[in-house]
Protein backbone atom coordinates (compact mmCIF):
# COMPACT_ATOMS: atom_id res chain seq x y z
CA UNK A 1 0.00 0.00 0.00
CA UNK A 2 1.32 3.42 0.83
CA UNK A 3 5.07 3.67 0.43
CA UNK A 4 5.53 5.77 3.49
CA UNK A 5 3.97 3.17 5.75
CA UNK A 6 6.65 2.07 8.19
CA UNK A 7 4.67 -0.60 9.96
CA UNK A 8 1.67 -2.07 8.26
CA UNK A 9 -0.82 -4.49 9.78
CA UNK A 10 -3.52 -5.99 7.61
CA UNK A 11 -6.30 -8.29 8.74
CA UNK A 12 -4.52 -9.40 11.89
CA UNK A 13 -6.37 -12.20 13.67
CA UNK A 14 -5.25 -13.97 16.82
CA UNK A 15 -6.97 -16.56 18.99
CA UNK A 16 -5.94 -18.34 22.15
CA UNK A 17 -7.83 -21.60 22.01
CA UNK A 18 -11.48 -20.67 21.59
CA UNK A 19 -10.90 -17.09 22.62
CA UNK A 20 -10.74 -14.71 19.67
CA UNK A 21 -8.63 -11.80 20.82
CA UNK A 22 -8.01 -9.99 17.55
CA UNK A 23 -10.70 -10.11 14.88
CA UNK A 24 -9.08 -8.51 11.88
CA UNK A 25 -7.07 -5.42 12.72
CA UNK A 26 -5.72 -3.04 10.07
CA UNK A 27 -3.25 -0.37 11.03
CA UNK A 28 -0.73 1.75 9.13
CA UNK A 29 2.02 3.56 10.99
CA UNK A 30 4.28 6.15 9.42
CA UNK A 31 7.92 6.75 10.29
CA UNK A 32 8.31 8.97 13.33
CA UNK A 33 4.71 8.65 14.33
CA UNK A 34 3.63 8.13 17.93
CA UNK A 35 0.55 5.93 18.10
CA UNK A 36 -1.31 5.46 21.37
CA UNK A 37 -3.43 2.33 21.63
CA UNK A 38 -6.30 2.81 24.02
CA UNK A 39 -9.09 0.53 25.05
CA UNK A 40 -10.61 -1.43 27.92
CA UNK A 41 -8.73 -4.43 29.28
CA UNK A 42 -9.29 -7.44 27.10
CA UNK A 43 -9.72 -5.30 24.01
CA UNK A 44 -6.67 -6.91 22.41
CA UNK A 45 -4.33 -3.92 22.40
CA UNK A 46 -1.47 -5.68 24.22
CA UNK A 47 -1.91 -8.75 22.05
CA UNK A 48 -1.73 -6.55 18.96
CA UNK A 49 1.53 -5.07 20.23
CA UNK A 50 2.93 -8.52 20.88
CA UNK A 51 1.91 -9.59 17.37
CA UNK A 52 4.00 -6.82 15.84
CA UNK A 53 7.32 -8.27 17.05
CA UNK A 54 5.98 -11.81 16.71
CA UNK A 55 6.13 -12.65 20.41
CA UNK A 56 2.60 -13.83 19.58
CA UNK A 57 2.54 -14.74 15.89
CA UNK A 58 -0.90 -13.90 14.44
CA UNK A 59 -3.08 -16.73 13.17
CA UNK A 60 -3.70 -14.78 10.00
CA UNK A 61 -3.01 -11.42 8.45
CA UNK A 62 0.02 -9.69 7.05
CA UNK A 63 2.63 -7.68 8.94
CA UNK A 64 5.01 -5.49 6.97
CA UNK A 65 7.94 -3.60 8.41
CA UNK A 66 9.84 -1.08 6.30
CA UNK A 67 8.28 -2.57 3.21
CA UNK A 68 9.24 -6.14 3.98
CA UNK A 69 6.65 -8.78 4.80
CA UNK A 70 7.62 -10.35 8.11
CA UNK A 71 4.52 -12.43 8.69
CA UNK A 72 1.83 -13.85 6.45
CA UNK A 73 1.80 -13.83 2.66
CA UNK A 74 5.18 -13.20 1.09
CA UNK A 75 7.11 -13.34 4.37
CA UNK A 76 10.60 -14.82 4.41
CA UNK A 77 11.63 -17.28 7.06
CA UNK A 78 13.96 -14.67 8.56
CA UNK A 79 11.03 -12.41 9.44
CA UNK A 80 11.48 -12.97 13.17
CA UNK A 81 15.11 -11.89 13.17
CA UNK A 82 14.35 -8.97 10.89
CA UNK A 83 11.61 -7.60 13.11
CA UNK A 84 13.35 -8.21 16.45
CA UNK A 85 16.46 -6.37 15.29
CA UNK A 86 14.41 -3.34 14.35
CA UNK A 87 11.69 -3.28 16.95
CA UNK A 88 12.37 -2.73 20.65
CA UNK A 89 9.87 -3.53 23.36
CA UNK A 90 9.29 -2.38 26.93
CA UNK A 91 7.02 -4.42 29.20
CA UNK A 92 4.58 -3.67 31.98
CA UNK A 93 6.58 -5.82 34.41
CA UNK A 94 9.97 -4.37 33.32
CA UNK A 95 11.41 -7.87 32.89
CA UNK A 96 14.93 -6.77 33.73
CA UNK A 97 17.35 -9.65 34.13
CA UNK A 98 17.64 -9.87 37.94
CA UNK A 99 21.06 -11.52 37.94
CA UNK A 100 22.67 -8.67 36.02
CA UNK A 101 23.48 -5.10 37.01
CA UNK A 102 21.76 -2.23 35.19
CA UNK A 103 24.81 -1.90 32.94
CA UNK A 104 24.94 -5.63 32.16
CA UNK A 105 21.23 -5.60 31.38
CA UNK A 106 21.88 -3.00 28.71
CA UNK A 107 25.02 -4.74 27.41
CA UNK A 108 24.10 -8.40 27.09
CA UNK A 109 22.07 -8.28 23.88
CA UNK A 110 24.46 -5.80 22.30
CA UNK A 111 27.26 -8.30 22.76
CA UNK A 112 25.37 -11.46 21.87
CA UNK A 113 23.10 -10.22 19.08
CA UNK A 114 24.97 -7.29 17.54
CA UNK A 115 28.38 -8.75 18.44
CA UNK A 116 29.64 -5.43 19.73
CA UNK A 117 32.85 -5.52 21.73
CA UNK A 118 32.38 -5.22 25.48
CA UNK A 119 33.91 -1.70 25.52
CA UNK A 120 31.65 -0.57 22.73
CA UNK A 121 28.62 -2.05 24.49
CA UNK A 122 29.61 -0.46 27.82
CA UNK A 123 30.07 2.95 26.22
CA UNK A 124 26.70 2.73 24.58
CA UNK A 125 25.06 1.47 27.77
CA UNK A 126 26.63 4.19 29.90
CA UNK A 127 25.48 6.89 27.49
CA UNK A 128 21.94 5.51 27.43
CA UNK A 129 21.70 5.08 31.20
CA UNK A 130 22.86 8.68 31.55
CA UNK A 131 20.22 9.74 29.09
CA UNK A 132 17.47 8.13 31.18
CA UNK A 133 18.94 9.78 34.29
CA UNK A 134 20.52 6.70 35.86
CA UNK A 135 24.24 7.48 35.66
CA UNK A 136 24.46 6.86 39.43
CA UNK A 137 22.86 3.43 39.19
CA UNK A 138 24.84 1.64 36.49
CA UNK A 139 26.22 -0.98 38.86
CA UNK A 140 23.05 -1.57 40.86
CA UNK A 141 21.07 -4.77 40.55
CA UNK A 142 17.37 -4.52 39.67
CA UNK A 143 16.17 -5.53 43.15
CA UNK A 144 17.82 -2.38 44.49
CA UNK A 145 16.09 -0.09 42.00
CA UNK A 146 12.63 1.44 42.24
CA UNK A 147 10.03 0.47 39.67
CA UNK A 148 10.52 3.72 37.80
CA UNK A 149 14.27 3.22 37.70
CA UNK A 150 13.87 -0.37 36.55
CA UNK A 151 11.57 0.71 33.77
CA UNK A 152 14.04 3.36 32.63
CA UNK A 153 16.78 0.71 32.53
CA UNK A 154 14.42 -1.42 30.43
CA UNK A 155 13.97 1.48 28.01
CA UNK A 156 17.74 1.97 27.79
CA UNK A 157 18.16 -1.76 27.22
CA UNK A 158 15.77 -1.66 24.26
CA UNK A 159 17.32 1.52 22.84
CA UNK A 160 20.80 -0.01 22.95
CA UNK A 161 19.81 -2.19 20.01
CA UNK A 162 19.22 0.92 17.85
CA UNK A 163 15.59 0.06 17.14
CA UNK A 164 13.63 1.75 14.39
CA UNK A 165 10.35 1.25 16.25
CA UNK A 166 9.63 1.06 19.97
CA UNK A 167 6.70 -0.82 21.48
CA UNK A 168 5.52 0.17 24.97
CA UNK A 169 3.14 -2.25 26.67
CA UNK A 170 1.42 -0.46 29.58
CA UNK A 171 4.82 0.48 30.88
CA UNK A 172 3.54 2.67 33.72
CA UNK A 173 0.69 0.43 34.90
CA UNK A 174 2.80 -1.41 37.49
CA UNK A 175 4.33 1.77 38.89
CA UNK A 176 3.47 3.72 42.00
CA UNK A 177 1.81 7.00 40.96
CA UNK A 178 4.77 9.16 41.94
CA UNK A 179 7.07 7.16 39.66
CA UNK A 180 4.95 7.38 36.53
CA UNK A 181 6.18 10.80 35.47
CA UNK A 182 9.88 9.94 35.31
CA UNK A 183 9.12 7.14 32.85
CA UNK A 184 6.70 9.20 30.76
CA UNK A 185 9.28 12.00 30.57
CA UNK A 186 11.80 9.63 29.03
CA UNK A 187 9.20 8.49 26.52
CA UNK A 188 8.25 12.07 25.72
CA UNK A 189 11.89 12.92 24.94
CA UNK A 190 12.16 9.87 22.76
CA UNK A 191 9.06 10.94 20.84
CA UNK A 192 10.47 14.44 20.39
CA UNK A 193 13.63 12.94 18.91
CA UNK A 194 11.49 11.35 16.23
CA UNK A 195 11.30 7.73 17.36
CA UNK A 196 8.45 5.73 15.86
CA UNK A 197 6.47 4.53 18.88
CA UNK A 198 3.46 2.35 19.47
CA UNK A 199 2.25 2.87 23.00
CA UNK A 200 -0.41 0.84 24.82
CA UNK A 201 -1.39 3.06 27.70
CA UNK A 202 -4.07 4.28 30.08
CA UNK A 203 -2.39 7.67 30.43
CA UNK A 204 -4.86 9.87 28.58
CA UNK A 205 -2.84 13.03 29.15
CA UNK A 206 0.23 11.42 27.67
CA UNK A 207 -1.78 10.28 24.67
CA UNK A 208 -3.13 13.78 24.17
CA UNK A 209 0.20 15.60 24.57
CA UNK A 210 2.65 13.18 22.98
CA UNK A 211 0.58 10.96 20.73
CA UNK A 212 0.16 11.93 17.09
CA UNK A 213 -2.69 9.52 16.70
CA UNK A 214 -4.95 7.62 19.04
CA UNK A 215 -6.26 4.21 18.10
CA UNK A 216 -9.18 3.05 20.18
CA UNK A 217 -9.72 -0.71 20.31
CA UNK A 218 -12.55 -2.74 21.76
CA UNK A 219 -13.49 -6.40 21.37
CA UNK A 220 -10.52 -7.19 19.15
CA UNK A 221 -11.15 -4.54 16.50
CA UNK A 222 -10.18 -0.93 15.92
CA UNK A 223 -13.27 1.09 16.79
CA UNK A 224 -11.97 4.53 16.01
CA UNK A 225 -8.72 6.26 15.17
CA UNK A 226 -7.56 9.74 14.37
CA UNK A 227 -5.46 12.66 15.60
CA UNK A 228 -5.10 12.44 19.39
CA UNK A 229 -7.01 15.57 20.32
CA UNK A 230 -9.83 14.82 17.96
CA UNK A 231 -10.40 11.28 19.25
CA UNK A 232 -9.95 12.18 22.90
CA UNK A 233 -11.87 15.45 22.96
CA UNK A 234 -14.63 14.76 20.48
CA UNK A 235 -14.86 11.03 19.82
CA UNK A 236 -17.27 10.04 17.11
CA UNK A 237 -18.04 6.53 18.33
CA UNK A 238 -20.32 5.79 21.26
CA UNK A 239 -17.98 3.10 22.65
CA UNK A 240 -15.04 5.50 22.65
CA UNK A 241 -17.12 8.09 24.51
CA UNK A 242 -18.17 5.53 27.11
CA UNK A 243 -14.60 4.38 27.68
CA UNK A 244 -13.20 7.89 27.93
CA UNK A 245 -16.01 8.81 30.29
CA UNK A 246 -15.01 5.96 32.59
CA UNK A 247 -11.30 6.68 32.42
CA UNK A 248 -11.50 10.44 32.81
CA UNK A 249 -14.01 10.31 35.67
CA UNK A 250 -11.40 9.45 38.24
Amino acid sequence: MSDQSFVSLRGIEKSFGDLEVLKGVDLEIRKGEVICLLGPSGSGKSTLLRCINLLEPPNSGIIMLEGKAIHGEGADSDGVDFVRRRVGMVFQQFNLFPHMSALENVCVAQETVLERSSEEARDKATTLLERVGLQEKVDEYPERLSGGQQQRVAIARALAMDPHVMLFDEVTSALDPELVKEVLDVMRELAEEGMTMIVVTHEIDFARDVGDRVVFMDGGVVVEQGPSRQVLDSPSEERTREFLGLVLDH
Partner: protein
Amino acid sequence: MDVIIQQYFDLTIIGENFGLVLKGFWETIQLSIIGGILSLVWGLVLALVRQLPGRAAKPLRGLAIAYIDAFRGIPMLLVLLLVSGGLGAFAADGAIPQWLGIPRWFGKPDPFWYGIIAITLTYGAYMAEVYRAGIEAVPRGQMEAARSLGMSYGQSMRHVIVPQAVRKVIPPLLNDFIALMKDTSLVSVIGFIEVVQAGQDVYQTTFNSSALTFGALLFLLVTIPLARFVDRRIAGQQERYSRGTAGASA
Protein backbone atom coordinates in the same frame (compact mmCIF):
# COMPACT_ATOMS: atom_id res chain seq x y z
CA MET B 1 26.52 -50.00 78.01
CA ASP B 2 30.16 -51.04 78.07
CA VAL B 3 29.40 -53.60 75.42
CA ILE B 4 28.05 -50.93 73.13
CA ILE B 5 30.97 -48.61 73.68
CA GLN B 6 33.41 -51.42 73.07
CA GLN B 7 31.66 -52.59 69.92
CA TYR B 8 31.22 -49.19 68.32
CA PHE B 9 33.66 -46.79 69.93
CA ASP B 10 36.84 -48.77 70.57
CA LEU B 11 39.50 -46.09 70.26
CA THR B 12 42.28 -48.63 69.92
CA ILE B 13 40.64 -50.15 66.87
CA ILE B 14 40.01 -46.72 65.42
CA GLY B 15 43.59 -45.67 66.12
CA GLU B 16 45.06 -48.78 64.52
CA ASN B 17 42.95 -48.39 61.38
CA PHE B 18 42.85 -44.64 61.23
CA GLY B 19 44.92 -44.36 58.06
CA LEU B 20 43.05 -47.16 56.33
CA VAL B 21 39.60 -45.68 56.92
CA LEU B 22 40.80 -42.17 56.09
CA LYS B 23 42.23 -43.44 52.82
CA GLY B 24 38.87 -45.08 52.09
CA PHE B 25 37.14 -41.80 52.83
CA TRP B 26 39.45 -39.99 50.42
CA GLU B 27 38.25 -42.41 47.72
CA THR B 28 34.66 -41.64 48.73
CA ILE B 29 35.37 -37.93 48.37
CA GLN B 30 36.90 -38.43 44.92
CA LEU B 31 33.93 -40.53 43.77
CA SER B 32 31.56 -37.87 45.11
CA ILE B 33 33.27 -34.87 43.59
CA ILE B 34 34.00 -36.32 40.16
CA GLY B 35 30.60 -38.06 40.04
CA GLY B 36 28.91 -34.93 41.37
CA ILE B 37 30.42 -32.63 38.75
CA LEU B 38 29.64 -35.01 35.90
CA SER B 39 26.07 -35.44 37.19
CA LEU B 40 25.62 -31.66 37.32
CA VAL B 41 26.75 -31.35 33.70
CA TRP B 42 24.82 -34.37 32.41
CA GLY B 43 21.70 -33.32 34.33
CA LEU B 44 21.80 -29.87 32.77
CA VAL B 45 22.19 -31.35 29.29
CA LEU B 46 19.19 -33.62 29.92
CA ALA B 47 17.10 -30.75 31.29
CA LEU B 48 17.92 -28.53 28.31
CA VAL B 49 17.07 -31.25 25.82
CA ARG B 50 13.83 -31.89 27.69
CA GLN B 51 12.94 -28.18 27.43
CA LEU B 52 13.76 -27.80 23.72
CA PRO B 53 10.95 -25.93 21.98
CA GLY B 54 9.24 -26.75 18.72
CA ARG B 55 7.76 -29.73 16.96
CA ALA B 56 11.07 -30.79 15.39
CA ALA B 57 12.58 -31.45 18.81
CA LYS B 58 9.74 -33.71 19.94
CA PRO B 59 11.63 -37.01 19.49
CA LEU B 60 14.61 -35.62 21.41
CA ARG B 61 12.34 -34.43 24.22
CA GLY B 62 10.73 -37.86 24.30
CA LEU B 63 14.11 -39.54 24.58
CA ALA B 64 15.17 -37.27 27.42
CA ILE B 65 11.92 -37.90 29.30
CA ALA B 66 12.22 -41.67 28.81
CA TYR B 67 15.81 -41.60 30.02
CA ILE B 68 15.00 -39.54 33.10
CA ASP B 69 12.02 -41.73 34.00
CA ALA B 70 14.07 -44.89 33.57
CA PHE B 71 17.09 -43.88 35.61
CA ARG B 72 15.05 -42.34 38.39
CA GLY B 73 13.15 -45.60 38.64
CA ILE B 74 16.07 -48.05 38.82
CA PRO B 75 18.20 -48.57 41.95
CA MET B 76 21.70 -47.22 41.44
CA LEU B 77 23.11 -50.56 42.59
CA LEU B 78 21.47 -52.19 39.60
CA VAL B 79 22.82 -49.56 37.23
CA LEU B 80 26.26 -50.13 38.71
CA LEU B 81 26.06 -53.89 38.16
CA LEU B 82 24.76 -53.43 34.60
CA VAL B 83 27.55 -50.99 33.76
CA SER B 84 30.42 -52.93 35.27
CA GLY B 85 29.22 -56.31 34.02
CA GLY B 86 28.39 -55.04 30.56
CA LEU B 87 31.49 -52.98 29.90
CA GLY B 88 33.75 -55.70 31.29
CA ALA B 89 32.13 -58.35 29.09
CA PHE B 90 32.17 -56.19 25.97
CA ALA B 91 35.87 -55.53 26.45
CA ALA B 92 36.55 -59.23 26.96
CA ASP B 93 34.71 -60.00 23.70
CA GLY B 94 36.63 -57.31 21.90
CA ALA B 95 33.37 -55.49 21.07
CA ILE B 96 34.76 -52.30 22.56
CA PRO B 97 38.38 -51.30 23.14
CA GLN B 98 40.07 -52.27 26.38
CA TRP B 99 40.59 -48.68 27.55
CA LEU B 100 36.84 -48.12 27.41
CA GLY B 101 35.62 -51.46 28.70
CA ILE B 102 38.07 -51.70 31.56
CA PRO B 103 38.83 -48.03 32.23
CA ARG B 104 41.93 -47.32 34.31
CA TRP B 105 42.12 -43.58 33.64
CA PHE B 106 44.30 -41.33 35.82
CA GLY B 107 45.64 -44.34 37.70
CA LYS B 108 42.26 -45.23 39.15
CA PRO B 109 41.07 -48.87 38.98
CA ASP B 110 38.14 -49.85 36.77
CA PRO B 111 35.55 -50.22 39.61
CA PHE B 112 36.14 -46.57 40.42
CA TRP B 113 35.20 -45.56 36.88
CA TYR B 114 32.25 -47.97 36.70
CA GLY B 115 31.10 -46.23 39.87
CA ILE B 116 31.54 -42.79 38.31
CA ILE B 117 29.55 -43.87 35.26
CA ALA B 118 26.71 -45.35 37.34
CA ILE B 119 26.58 -42.28 39.58
CA THR B 120 26.48 -39.92 36.60
CA LEU B 121 23.81 -41.91 34.77
CA THR B 122 21.61 -42.08 37.88
CA TYR B 123 22.13 -38.71 39.50
CA GLY B 124 22.14 -36.93 36.15
CA ALA B 125 18.49 -38.00 35.89
CA TYR B 126 17.68 -36.70 39.38
CA MET B 127 19.45 -33.42 38.79
CA ALA B 128 17.76 -32.97 35.40
CA GLU B 129 14.44 -32.83 37.24
CA VAL B 130 15.80 -30.29 39.68
CA TYR B 131 17.08 -28.09 36.85
CA ARG B 132 13.74 -28.41 35.09
CA ALA B 133 11.92 -27.10 38.13
CA GLY B 134 14.36 -24.19 38.22
CA ILE B 135 13.96 -23.38 34.53
CA GLU B 136 10.17 -23.49 34.84
CA ALA B 137 10.31 -21.20 37.86
CA VAL B 138 11.89 -18.38 35.85
CA PRO B 139 9.06 -15.99 34.91
CA ARG B 140 7.89 -16.14 31.29
CA GLY B 141 8.63 -12.45 30.84
CA GLN B 142 12.36 -13.15 31.08
CA MET B 143 12.38 -15.24 27.91
CA GLU B 144 10.12 -12.70 26.19
CA ALA B 145 12.41 -9.82 27.12
CA ALA B 146 15.46 -11.70 25.86
CA ARG B 147 13.75 -12.71 22.62
CA SER B 148 12.40 -9.20 22.06
CA LEU B 149 16.00 -7.96 22.18
CA GLY B 150 16.78 -10.27 19.29
CA MET B 151 18.51 -12.99 21.27
CA SER B 152 18.04 -16.51 19.90
CA TYR B 153 16.46 -19.27 22.00
CA GLY B 154 19.92 -20.65 22.77
CA GLN B 155 21.36 -17.24 23.72
CA SER B 156 18.34 -16.53 25.91
CA MET B 157 18.72 -19.84 27.73
CA ARG B 158 22.46 -19.41 28.16
CA HIS B 159 22.57 -15.79 29.32
CA VAL B 160 19.17 -15.23 30.89
CA ILE B 161 17.23 -18.35 31.86
CA VAL B 162 19.81 -20.92 32.98
CA PRO B 163 21.84 -18.57 35.23
CA GLN B 164 18.65 -17.65 37.10
CA ALA B 165 17.42 -21.24 37.19
CA VAL B 166 20.71 -22.52 38.61
CA ARG B 167 20.68 -19.94 41.41
CA LYS B 168 17.19 -21.03 42.37
CA VAL B 169 18.07 -24.72 42.54
CA ILE B 170 21.41 -24.68 44.34
CA PRO B 171 19.81 -25.95 47.59
CA PRO B 172 18.00 -28.95 46.03
CA LEU B 173 21.10 -29.74 43.96
CA LEU B 174 23.15 -29.85 47.15
CA ASN B 175 20.56 -32.16 48.70
CA ASP B 176 21.02 -34.46 45.73
CA PHE B 177 24.76 -34.21 46.21
CA ILE B 178 24.43 -35.38 49.83
CA ALA B 179 22.40 -38.37 48.65
CA LEU B 180 24.95 -39.02 45.90
CA MET B 181 27.79 -38.98 48.37
CA LYS B 182 26.09 -41.60 50.54
CA ASP B 183 25.35 -43.74 47.49
CA THR B 184 29.04 -43.91 46.56
CA SER B 185 29.29 -46.67 49.21
CA LEU B 186 27.49 -48.94 46.73
CA VAL B 187 30.67 -49.08 44.64
CA SER B 188 32.10 -51.35 47.35
CA VAL B 189 29.87 -54.08 45.92
CA ILE B 190 32.05 -54.35 42.79
CA GLY B 191 35.22 -54.52 44.82
CA PHE B 192 36.25 -50.94 45.34
CA ILE B 193 37.57 -50.03 48.76
CA GLU B 194 35.97 -46.76 49.79
CA VAL B 195 35.22 -45.76 53.35
CA VAL B 196 32.45 -48.27 54.08
CA GLN B 197 34.38 -51.21 52.63
CA ALA B 198 37.48 -50.13 54.55
CA GLY B 199 35.49 -50.21 57.79
CA GLN B 200 33.89 -53.50 56.88
CA ASP B 201 37.31 -55.04 56.16
CA VAL B 202 38.32 -54.13 59.71
CA TYR B 203 35.10 -55.62 61.05
CA GLN B 204 35.69 -58.89 59.25
CA THR B 205 39.03 -59.44 60.94
CA THR B 206 38.16 -58.03 64.39
CA PHE B 207 34.35 -58.39 64.65
CA ASN B 208 34.48 -54.88 66.02
CA SER B 209 32.41 -52.10 64.36
CA SER B 210 34.44 -49.12 65.53
CA ALA B 211 36.13 -48.53 62.18
CA LEU B 212 32.66 -48.35 60.58
CA THR B 213 31.59 -45.88 63.25
CA PHE B 214 34.63 -43.80 62.41
CA GLY B 215 33.59 -43.91 58.75
CA ALA B 216 30.11 -42.74 59.73
CA LEU B 217 31.61 -39.81 61.65
CA LEU B 218 33.67 -38.84 58.63
CA PHE B 219 30.48 -38.76 56.53
CA LEU B 220 28.76 -36.56 59.09
CA LEU B 221 31.72 -34.20 59.08
CA VAL B 222 30.85 -33.36 55.47
CA THR B 223 27.10 -33.92 55.25
CA ILE B 224 25.97 -31.97 58.33
CA PRO B 225 27.69 -28.70 57.35
CA LEU B 226 26.38 -29.15 53.80
CA ALA B 227 22.83 -29.70 55.07
CA ARG B 228 23.11 -26.63 57.32
CA PHE B 229 24.36 -24.58 54.39
CA VAL B 230 21.38 -25.72 52.34
CA ASP B 231 18.99 -24.79 55.16
CA ARG B 232 20.47 -21.34 55.47
CA ARG B 233 20.28 -20.75 51.75
CA ILE B 234 16.65 -21.83 51.60
CA ALA B 235 15.83 -19.61 54.57
CA GLY B 236 17.60 -16.71 52.87
CA GLN B 237 15.70 -17.27 49.65
CA GLN B 238 12.38 -17.44 51.47
CA GLU B 239 13.15 -14.23 53.28
CA ARG B 240 13.93 -12.51 49.99
CA TYR B 241 10.70 -13.80 48.50
CA SER B 242 8.62 -12.66 51.45
CA ARG B 243 10.21 -9.22 51.09
CA GLY B 244 9.04 -9.47 47.53
CA THR B 245 12.36 -8.53 46.01
CA ALA B 246 13.76 -11.83 44.80
CA GLY B 247 13.82 -11.89 41.03
CA ALA B 248 12.65 -8.29 41.08
CA SER B 249 11.17 -8.65 37.63
CA ALA B 250 8.58 -11.20 38.72
